[in-house]
């Protein structure tokens, strides 16, 4: 039994954190909202140079051949800065899907992804819209368990504006004559695995978002004075933030465990991911609710940075399986006849 991250994993997190915090400032995020694509090719190249785009690309395709567990702390840091680039979905969903599809498709595209020369995006039917379809050089599109590998000439993408200006969402229509590259049981298995991977990405980012909202709120309430004191010295304000800290603290281990299950325990992955996403998104939603409250009217403005993180948290809570879907995953396990529950049943 060893429930700790390795020193290498923690060191990689440190490196990525300091890069992202320096580069992805709220000013830069705001500037990105007004650009055509909202995405930054130069930044993507930098992420590739750090090995991030190729993190889950197998070594024989020029990647680092790492796992979901290796990436989960990094995804958390992506959440902390509300990174708009589609890195989390690429590393956790699109690349593993491409690896699963295999063959010439994988051999052609994976080295390009690792080098940062191409972006592969995965879109599931359950998600209603496809994130970042506009910058996809290859779109892996799932419809009713059938998978299509589409280049930009084979689909059209109509933008759906989100309340989060950092998110770029599209209704995708297949335009050409595309044959599915995978279907049947294998297609459905990949659909479920992809959904779980996407949900894990949301959960990890939600941890980072919650932490960022706590940090912003602590800073604001330490500076803002009323009644001659910082408002953060009042218990009513403190307890709002302490409540967030409690929910966040107990969401961390479920997210780590879900990443581990994704790599090591396919049968238990849906349950572990459901627990992780529900816990982490609940923590992030509570962080949003209590953070706007302690910011007062300032929190309701466009000018204060809080809304950047708040809106992303709201969005992640309802995509890659909403709360109802994931609660159903939990319910189907714990209410099953003969379910092994209780003390000593957690690690099986």
């Amino acid at each position, binding site marked *: *039994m*060893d*429930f*700790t*991250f*390795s020193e290498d994993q923690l060191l990689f997190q440190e490196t990525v954190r300091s890069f992202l915090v320096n580069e992805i400032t709220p000013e830069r995020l705001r500037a990105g909202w007004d650009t055509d694509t909202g995405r930054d090719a130069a930044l993507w190249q930098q992420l590739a140079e750090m090995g991030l785009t190729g993190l889950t690309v197998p070594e024989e395709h020029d990647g680092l051949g790492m796992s979901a*567990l290796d990436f989960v702390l990094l995804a958390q840091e992506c959440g902390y800065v509300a990174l708009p680039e589609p890195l989390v979905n690429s590393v956790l969903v699109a690349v593993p899907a491409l690896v699963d599809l295999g063959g010439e498709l994988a051999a052609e595209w994976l080295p390009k992804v690792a080098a940062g020369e191409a972006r592969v995006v995965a879109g599931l039917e359950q998600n209603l819209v496809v994130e970042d379809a506009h910058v996809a050089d290859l779109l892996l599109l799932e419809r009713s368990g059938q998978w299509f590998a589409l280049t930009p000439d084979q689909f059209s993408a109509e933008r759906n504006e989100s309340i989060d200006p950092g998110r770029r969402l599209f209704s995708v229509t297949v335009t050409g004559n595309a044959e599915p590259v995978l279907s049947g049981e294998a297609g459905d298995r990949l659909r479920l695995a992809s959904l779980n991977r996407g949900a894990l990405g949301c959960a990890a980012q939600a941890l980072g978002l919650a932490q960022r909202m*706590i940090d912003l709120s*602590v800073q604001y*309430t*330490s500076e803002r004075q009323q009644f001659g*004191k*910082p408002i*953060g*010295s009042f*218990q009513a*304000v*403190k*307890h709002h*933030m*302490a*409540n967030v*800290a*409690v929910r966040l*603290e*107990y*969401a*961390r*281990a*479920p997210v*780590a*465990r879900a990443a*581990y299950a994704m790599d*090591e325990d396919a049968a238990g992955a849906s349950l572990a991911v459901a*627990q992780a996403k*529900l*816990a982490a998104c609940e923590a992030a939603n509570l962080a949003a609710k209590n953070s706007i409250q302690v910011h007062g009217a300032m929190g309701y403005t466009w000018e204060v940075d809080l809304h950047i993180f708040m809106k992303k948290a709201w969005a992640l809570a309802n995509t890659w399986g909403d709360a109802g879907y994931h*609660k159903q995953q*939990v*319910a189907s396990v*714990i*209410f099953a006849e003969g*379910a092994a*529950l*209780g*003390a*000593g*049943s*957690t*690690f099986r």
Partner: protein
Amino acid sequence: MQLAFTEQQQAFRKEIREWLAANVPAEPLKTFDTEEGFQQHREWEATLNEGRWGMVTWPEELGGRGCDLIEWLIFEEEYYRAGAPLRVNQNGIFLLGPTLMEYGTDEQKARFLPAMAEGRDIWAQGWSEPNAGSDMAAIRSTARLEGDKYIINGQKTWSTRAVWADWLFGMFRTDPDSQRHRGLTFILVPLNSPGITIRPIPQLDGLPGFAEIFFDNVEVDVSNRLGDEGAGWAVAMATAGFERGLMLRSPARFQETARRLVELYRENEATASADPAIREAVIRAWMDAEAYCLSTYQTACRLSQGGKIGAESSTNKIFWSELDQAMHATAMSILGARAELLPHAPAAQGVGRWLDGWLFSQSGPIYAGTNEIQRNIIAERMLGMPR
């Protein structure tokens, strides 16, 4: 990361599971808030100790097994899974025991630890006073040094299981001119000393689960002082650390409650499903109990690799106490009109121990530092908010 038990850990689990299967009384013991039940629980502690299961984390020479935190969690899982009796001496073995090992002299360790492990000495706590609750540094009970004796005067209250306990550990003001945390001393007091009056206080269930204790010129030998004179606060804080919290309320307890809650819901689904909030609460209870378990294992692994516990550990008590309350509230909702009935009432079929648990869960957010105090600690020490 490797989320599987080693062969050694599995063998340990098997050993305790088999011992419990052979030794846990078939008939549940009476509650230790009755004289008869207290005696039964005292005997159970002796049985546990004979099997060397009394305090597995203690060193072997003290009757323990020198277990690490992971083995402790395994022990607890099997213990709660087997429905073994609650630990009547938890104040002693979980709180005072580790403190004695850290601060006690060799003579004190030899004198107190074996008797504690055998259940001969059952311990009560003496922290709270009528005017020192959340504000513990406001303690006013005094201990005046005269020769080789302390002369104790004052009053302690909310002392759990003090009615039938043998000993009390607590803090007393040894320096009459001192303020707040300074001038307090940690002293061990035999509860049969002349000058002690114990007045039982009935709890919510009507049973004398705690007591107030009056000290009228009670003489205690100076060899009963734990740590230095005036160092009581530091010694007392050592009893409140994470590992002690882990000893007192390990995840197994809540996971078993969650399992029983799922079972209760399934048995009563026809009526309980009329309120969709109940189903939601059952799902959440199970998830939170699992999250508590996962987080505890994560922290235990980090500590056993030499990691340090930080201020984040103060989130622990809020999480389990609110979980316990929520689980029992949900059980009450499922039981509906039966919820208020005592188990022996004719119409109470199948209510089990839920009502008792519901009552006890009301105390969780209050004892061991109210949750409001915990929130202040989290905000100030973990998040760095201004005082």
